[in-house]
């Protein structure tokens, strides 16, 4: 048994006229924060979409907890415990925070009607785990973007997700919000048995928070599951940038 929660082996994905991924590998260790880096068009988003069931690969295999899987829809991937945290796009903005968190499984009373007291209570549990000071009855559109994103993460946790994919999570956050987010992510990994894939352009963030790094370049691995301690900023940049003048 390996201690990888998610393994992608020799993934190739062809689009008409383009090879978006060419024998790419990606391995996510349990309880780690893994940076996925690469320039635009390097294949990052294709890889994420394969993990989350938006696309299917042409070649290669995907293992979740050492079992081969193939997801035919984002919903299937979500049920298997893989959640993508977008910026705030997946929340129903006119619903309360609590209802958003519980939406896939709204608690009912004896008459089969939604019990909003239990919605508030149950969702509060997840907000508390994240140490988020948000009233579950707050309407989402009244929150700041940073808080919306934290609610997204709370929602992923409430779905019992074991793998969180964070796609450029800090792009619309203030430095203070970013700091809070990182503290939270570290705590989640330590306490909640969660593994995180972290996609970002900001290298300083990668060094601050990630354990391992995978870099994609032209759909291939420029490096795979490298310990962050073996790298420095210069080396990373070199790995990412396509050498034009060779």
């Amino acid at each position, binding site marked *: 048994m390996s201690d990888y929660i998610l393994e992608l082996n020799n993934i190739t994905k062809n689009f008409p006229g383009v090879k978006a991924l060419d024998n790419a590998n990606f391995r996510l260790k349990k309880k780690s924060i893994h940076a996925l880096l690469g320039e635009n068009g390097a294949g990052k988003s294709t890889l994420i979409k394969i993990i989350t069931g938006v696309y299917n690969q042409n070649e290669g295999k995907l293992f979740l907890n050492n079992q081969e899987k193939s997801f035919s829809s*984002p*919903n299937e991937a*979500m*049920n298997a415990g893989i959640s993508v945290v977008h910026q705030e*796009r*997946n*929340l*129903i*903005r*006119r*619903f309360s925070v609590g*209802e958003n968190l519980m*939406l*896939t499984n*709204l608690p009912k009373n004896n008459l*089969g*009607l*939604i019990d909003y007291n239990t919605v508030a209570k149950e969702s509060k549990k997840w907000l508390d785990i994240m140490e988020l000071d948000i009233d579950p009855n707050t309407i989402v*559109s009244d929150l*700041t*973007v940073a808080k919306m994103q934290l609610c997204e993460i709370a929602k992923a946790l409430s779905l019992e997700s074991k793998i969180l994919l964070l796609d450029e999570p800090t792009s*619309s956050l*203030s430095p203070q919000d970013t700091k809070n987010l990182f503290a939270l992510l570290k705590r989640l990994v330590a306490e909640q048995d969660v593994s995180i894939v972290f996609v970002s352009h900001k290298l300083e963030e990668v060094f601050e928070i990630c354990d391992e790094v995978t870099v994609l370049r032209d759909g291939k691995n420029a490096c795979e599951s490298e310990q962050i301690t073996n790298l420095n900023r210069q080396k990373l940049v070199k790995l990412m940038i396509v050498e034009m003048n060779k």
Partner: protein
Amino acid sequence: MSVLLKKDWFGLGLVLIFGSILISLFKPAFISPFNLYVLMLSVSLMLVVAMSQMIIIAIGQMNLSVGAIGGLVAISFTGLMEVYSMSILPAVLIGLLIGLACGFINGYITVKTGISAFIITLATLYIFKGMNLGITEAQPFYEIPEAVKFFGNAKIFGPIPYLVIIPIIITVLMWILMNRTSLGRYMLAYGNNVQSSELIGISSTKIVIYAHVISGLLAAIGGMLVVCRLQLGTPNIGDSWLLPSFAAPVIGGAILAGGKVDVIATAFGVILVSIISQALVIFKIDPFFVQIFLGFMILLAVFINRYREYREERRTKVFSDE
């Protein structure tokens, strides 16, 4: 108090109360039993029609065929009783089935083709209306059982007509549906954001078809209630429903892009439109102006709702720039 102020129905309720007091001060005839009776009849009929449109607005679509379904069901209901001497109950059931089928057709075609419901229901409007005219050859059915006539015109007590019973039950059920059931909440979630609701695992096919089926059923009930009221089934029942069907939900704060409707506020919107129509009559203003007025009210309500949305969007943008 601040919670109340945020609710769409609260402000409308105040307008209704003060408006009614004002009108009755100028024209005491406004609160005469007969006038209240007429008002309740008009509110009852329009309430069902407004709910039929409201549920489609909730999912961010439009149903232009509401009136055509109501008309087709109205003449089928009366035709079955007159031509085939069918008793009331089976005729009602067949009427409901026709409404359900029409709604299913609207929903199924919309969700399977991905074409806007506006276009689909524009087409089915003509199909349903054409069937109506083909069956009736534009002639009304007059042979209505006494029980039906009684139901449409008798009073329970005071000025309260029997006709209010079904619309009130429907309004309560609609409130429960939209506020306390997964189906209703998923419809609103779908109206808010199709993509993210699909990602949560909400089936678009199911939501769209259910919404249109309920809309068809309500339009059918509306058509049959009008038959009770008029004591005959004319082919032009439903022809005038389109404008008020949008007016009431929109005045009640519904956003046409979907995801936001308020059942109570929609009911208040119906009452407001009815009171205004009646006030115009009481103040002896040409009834033809009522439509102009209604048109302007829709415009005003849409502007107000749009302005609110705009403010909401701007606030979020400000936050994201920090």
